[in-house]
């Protein structure tokens, strides 16, 4: 099998599978009240999922924990948010800090 037909098979497989994962809950459970447990999950899981996204996008490099300049950027972002900076300011400060740290280190 050449690279192109392999690519097509993988494309179809991942596209169908990922769509099923995305649409499962909205299509199966949507349009009516959620069962109590799922309703509570929907209320409480977002904080955990968002926090996990912060952690993995800061620390993960595949399955490795990579301690690099990104951490400095995220710390500055936290300080900026604590000082009530807006979204774009926060992101720009994080990017600039990380770039500066990489230039220096």
């Amino acid at each position, binding site marked *: *099998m050449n*690279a*192109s037909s*392999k*690519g*097509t*098979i*993988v*494309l179809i*497989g*991942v*596209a169908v*599978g*990922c*769509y099923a*994962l995305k*649409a*499962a*809950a*909205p*299509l199966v*459970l*949507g*349009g009516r009240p959620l069962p109590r*447990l*799922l309703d*509570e*999950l*929907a*209320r*409480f*899981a977002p*904080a955990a*999922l968002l*926090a*996990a*996204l*912060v*952690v*993995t996008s800061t*620390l*993960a490099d595949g*399955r490795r*924990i990579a301690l690099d300049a*990104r951490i400095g*950027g*995220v710390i500055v*972002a*936290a300080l900026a*948010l604590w000082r009530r900076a807006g*979204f*774009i300011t*926060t*992101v720009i*400060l*994080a*990017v*600039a800090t990380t*770039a*500066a740290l990489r230039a220096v280190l």
Partner: protein
Amino acid sequence: MSTSTVGGPALPLAPHARTEEYETDRRAIRRRAVSISVALMPFAFAFGISCADAGLSAWHAVGFSLLVFTGGSQFAAVGVLRDGGAPASAIASGLLLGLRLLAYGVVMTPHLPGPRWKRALDSHLMIDESVAVGLGSGDPSNVRYGYRWGGLSVFVLWNLSTVAGAVVGNSAGDLIERFGIDAAIPASFLALVWPRLLDEQQRIIALVGAVIAATLIPLAPPGIPILAAGLAAFVGIARARRQDGPPAASAAPPAPSER
């Protein structure tokens, strides 16, 4: 607002529509959505390049970005192909990374009302960033607005950048790192979770979720730490049930400790 109930339950947004706060929230949402999309462009560019590396055409590259449309799974699947892996293992690693989408679905379901075909279309936009922008909204009735803005703006710029990367086929990894663009992603997520951290209950859940995710990074394939972090919600559920007490006795569910 005297006639706000005339429209019935089909128009839950109408009573807010003219308030200033509501408009400000929507403006902020649009700004966040667009800036996250811009920050993601170099990554889509890099994805286009990695497709070219794996011997795939530009059509494949943009096919992934249009039809799979979840960055992590795209990179994982194409990465396996590039390393000479079998199609089945490329598909498996793409789907493993996508398991967290199940949890996003549960969280978003209450915010995606409407007929089945609308829910089917909305579902395709389900990615880290659309969910995060949606949930980052201060007003629960704006969650879908943020989700759609986040999803659609990323969709457009992600696909355009993928094409550019696949056609140009140069190294973007250096560029992303040198300019610190990779830090834009965690900073965005942090800004979106921040308002929740002001509430003690939510802060505890976020902390437990963060610890679970950090612990699992070296132990589980990418994507799983995020999915597992969702389990931290049970801490909140247990605490809330303890505070509220059981619901009506006839409908009492098993005690939290059995969950």
